[in-house]
């Protein structure tokens, strides 16, 4: 629920303040660590015993003007990294999970075509988290929306609540085909995790972004939206972007340019 507050009350949570704190800690850490360590690593890699922090907010910029028609490199990269069967290879396409998909849009009047990847938007105010009866659907401190499969009972209320159709139920047994880093299982709901296993390893990026960059499209940028010096923050300052269904005011972690 978003509440209207006078400006002064917003100060503790304002992006400016958070950016300042973030920059300050980054600098302090940078000073403390021996020379030779890149500042980039300080910003993204956190020690394994340290919990994810709300000083960071992971986000993604999708530049739909650069997203190539017919290219689904991001989708296959996600499938490879996270171990879900590509829909084309599934025996039950309607029941197959899809963490990310390419969406083709067209304006019926002007014939203008746009295409873009659609996945979990990692809302700051996620409806799926609001409706989950057991709290299995949750938002991590660094803004990543996840499903805790240990408490998910498969009620699918989150799938009813998500405005982006981002979630899938695993309809059949996976027979030990899961990746060791990415547990997934029958009867539980799942969706894009911003490659949380890579984030926690310190990669600071996701499989889809790596694939898009490797293919030379550069339509995807991933990073810390709270860090004013990150590439994504710089790009977001310059490019006009939109949130999908901005009317719902969910404060999304994925921003689109060219829609």
């Amino acid at each position, binding site marked *: 629920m978003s509440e209207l507050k006078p400006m002064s009350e917003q100060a503790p949570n304002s992006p400016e303040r958070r950016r300042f704190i973030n920059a300050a800690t980054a600098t302090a850490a940078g000073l403390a660590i021996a020379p030779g360590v890149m500042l980039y690593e300080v910003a993204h890699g956190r020690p*394994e*015993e*340290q*919990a*994810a922090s709300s000083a960071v907010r992971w986000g993604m910029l999708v530049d739909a003007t650069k997203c190539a028609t017919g290219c689904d*490199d991001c989708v*296959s*990269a996600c*499938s*490879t990294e996270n*171990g879900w*069967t*590509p829909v084309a*290879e599934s025996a039950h396409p309607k029941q197959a999970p899809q963490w990310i998909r390419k969406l083709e849009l067209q304006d019926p009047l002007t014939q203008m075509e746009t295409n873009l990847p659609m996945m979990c938007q990692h809302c700051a105010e996620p409806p799926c988290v609001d409706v989950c009866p057991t709290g299995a659907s*949750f938002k*991590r*401190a*660094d803004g990543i929306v*996840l499903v*805790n*499969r*240990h408490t998910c009972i498969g009620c699918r209320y989150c799938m009813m609540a998500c405005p982006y159709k981002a979630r899938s139920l695993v309809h059949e*047994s996976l027979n*030990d*085909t*899961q*990746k*060791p*880093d990415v*547990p*997934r*299982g*029958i*009867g*539980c709901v799942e969706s894009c995790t911003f490659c*949380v296993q*890579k*984030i*926690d*390893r*310190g*990669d600071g990026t996701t*499989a889809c972004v*790596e*694939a898009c960059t*490797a*293919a030379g499209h550069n339509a995807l940028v991933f990073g810390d939206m709270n860090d004013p010096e990150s590439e994504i923050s710089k790009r977001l300052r310059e490019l006009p972007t939109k949130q999908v269904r901005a009317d719902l005011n969910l404060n999304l972690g994925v921003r689109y340019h060219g829609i």
Partner: protein
Amino acid sequence: MASKIKRLLALGAVVLTTAALAWAGADDQPKASGAPKPVITKAVKGEQCVEPTDYMRRNHMKVLNHHRDEAVIEGVRTKKHSLKECINCHASETTGSVAASKDDFCVSCHSYAAVKIDCFDCHSTKPQASSAMHPLNAETAHYKHKLAAQANAKVSAEEMAGIAQ
């Protein structure tokens, strides 16, 4: 009410497992009539478990549950008590898994104690390295060469070396 009964049953099951495991661990005990003792294969990798063996036999579920909550909710992915590391050391040399056949490390004791393992509906029973050879992933593995993900390679190389030895 049903939940209370279920909880009692679960508690009973835990007590029984602990008792059974403790009993199974003691060498001088006579064999139970009919029930074959669980096969406990020594871990392939490493000399000593992260905690004393006796402690782990009784408390591995507590250790795992604690680590699980920290890892999933807070993102604290320390290696010491992670299920992935258990699997890395204890996967069988023949099946490459901790739960693929009846003599594999986890299954062997759990079936002896008649306690259902819920882990492997979701978690892979195999260490990292072997997963790339899985048929499902092999179909999409063509993608890997496109990516120059060095961090990835580093982790798997470490683990592969460990498992191979």
